[in-house]
């Protein structure tokens, strides 16, 4: 169980995340939605301490995460794997090595400098790749793969950490719809079959509705909605995305990647030069 208490992050005068209090039981698949700049990313990055909180606390199964340092902090990071929007693989290394790097926290510094991974680890890595349908790419350089494939390699790397918690920061924002579906299916499979808690930042509402058990919506750094997807009404959605009046009607699909470009839709006319 993950508990956040009054978690706050300030960047100078700006408050990115403000007094967030949440409890996430083990095994849930949670979608965090909201506009760009609502604080979703910062919230997620505080959980594995890529950002240090300015205030409040994070407790995971009794372990206070916000004060961890050094080796303890690295141990915690290996327990909560992270998936990034831009995959964050090492482009010049082959896929198998990238996946094996998920084990890096288990290795002592000196031996780890020479790519010495055990046979068991290699087997584990190949199984992870096989599960994500990428075993035949194992020896290719990571940067020769498509975006969707790279994201699945990143998921395989995350699985190598044998995490208790999986954080995904906009995992499908750079992907085409088909690859996006594959990645989201993989995340849900990990959640359902391995019982790993998944917290996923999404800016497309339909994806969140389709895949998540629970939706948390953020607006200006605060949690403004926290319930099952079905409880998310039109009014709430309008508030989250900051649509003031309903003159043309707010369509939920407009938050989706696929909704923006419709054939035949008029281009937004540019305001006159002043």
């Amino acid at each position, binding site marked *: 169980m993950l508990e956040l208490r009054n978690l706050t992050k300030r960047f100078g005068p700006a408050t990115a995340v403000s007094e967030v209090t949440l409890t996430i039981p083990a095994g849930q698949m949670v979608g965090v939605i909201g506009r760009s700049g609502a604080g979703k990313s910062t919230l997620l990055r505080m959980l*594995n301490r*890529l950002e240090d909180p300015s205030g409040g606390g994070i407790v995971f199964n009794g372990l206070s995460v916000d004060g961890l340092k050094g080796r303890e902090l*690295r*141990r*915690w*990071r*290996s327990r909560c*794997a*992270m998936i*990034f929007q*831009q*995959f*964050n*693989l*090492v*482009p*010049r*290394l*082959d896929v198998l090595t990238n996946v094996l*790097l*998920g084990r*890096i*926290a288990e*290795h002592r*510094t000196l031996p*780890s*400098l020479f790519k010495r991974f055990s046979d068991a680890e290699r087997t584990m890595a190949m199984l992870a790749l096989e599960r994500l349908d990428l075993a035949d790419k194992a020896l290719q*350089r990571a940067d020769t793969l498509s975006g969707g494939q790279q994201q699945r390699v*990143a998921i395989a*790397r995350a699985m190598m*950490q044998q995490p208790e918690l999986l954080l995904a920061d906009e995992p499908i924002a750079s992907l085409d719809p088909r690859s996006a579906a594959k990645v989201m299916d993989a995340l849900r499979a990990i959640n359902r079959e391995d019982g790993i808690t998944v917290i996923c930042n999404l800016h497309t509402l339909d994806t969140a509705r389709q895949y998540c058990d629970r939706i948390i919506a953020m607006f200006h750094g605060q949690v403004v909605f926290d319930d099952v997807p079905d409880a998310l009404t039109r009014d709430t959605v309008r508030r989250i995305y900051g649509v003031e009046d309903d003159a043309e009607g707010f369509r939920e699909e407009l938050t989706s990647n696929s909704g923006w470009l419709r054939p035949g839709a008029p281009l937004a006319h540019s305001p006159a*030069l*002043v």
Partner: protein
Amino acid sequence: MSEHTLKPGSLPAEVLARFDRLRAERRRTTVIGLAIFALCFAAAAWVGEFSLSRIAEGAPRIHEYIVKILPELRVSQFGEDMAYWFYGLPQWLALLWETVLMAYLATLLGTLGAVLGCFFAAHNLTPNGPAYFVARRSLEVARTIPDLVYALIFVFAFGLGPLAGILAIAIHSMGASGKLFAEAAENIDMKPVEGLRAAGANWVQTMRYAVVPQVLPNFASYTLWRFELNVRTAAVLGFVGAGGIGQELITAIRMLYYEDVSALVLLIVLTVTCIDLLCEKVRHHFIGKENLA
């Protein structure tokens, strides 16, 4: 220099006016920049006593010296003349070999130091402020003190011979390559670094797996270039008794053994050219390699 112009009447007057203002501002910046450049140039020429008349006056004397150091080669007895010119060849080749080995060892040592230092001296990777400061300043000291000065110090400490030269070149290489390496490391893509940190890697592991694969081609290329430079440096460090062929060259210059000077310079040029060609081959081989890391 080309400049953007807009046709009057093609846009609202206000837009045109603002555009003109911005353009005038840019023009002013350019003019000020050129003026500063010209001023610096004039000052440098004055301080350096750089004048065309002096060059015109002295140029013929260069020719004179070159003629003086060239031997007399006759077609009828070319072989004998060459043998006379290069009478010291066996000894000189041994000294050249020593020179190249000095450069080689110094490049290895210097590069090792540069690699260790550069991660601390790259502001995006350094573990903390003090480490950054210390690394930057030591690399600066290592490269700004001329290698001849280091050579003199080490000759004083360790005596005449190649050891002093090797150490002098190694220290200078460490400083020069360290700065270039740090700059290469500052230009990397930071996403893999974040990926490694998020997987629980410590600093050393992050450098090894997220940074080294990205910078290795750059490092290899710089190092080969540094080796070329070091061969040249090793050839002159003998001037102060720090080993290599320079000792022989400075003796020939001082004692006015004119033909020896031309023979030695020719040999040095040939050696540097060979090293140059060799390094180019190796560099191409490296760049072609896929999984260098």
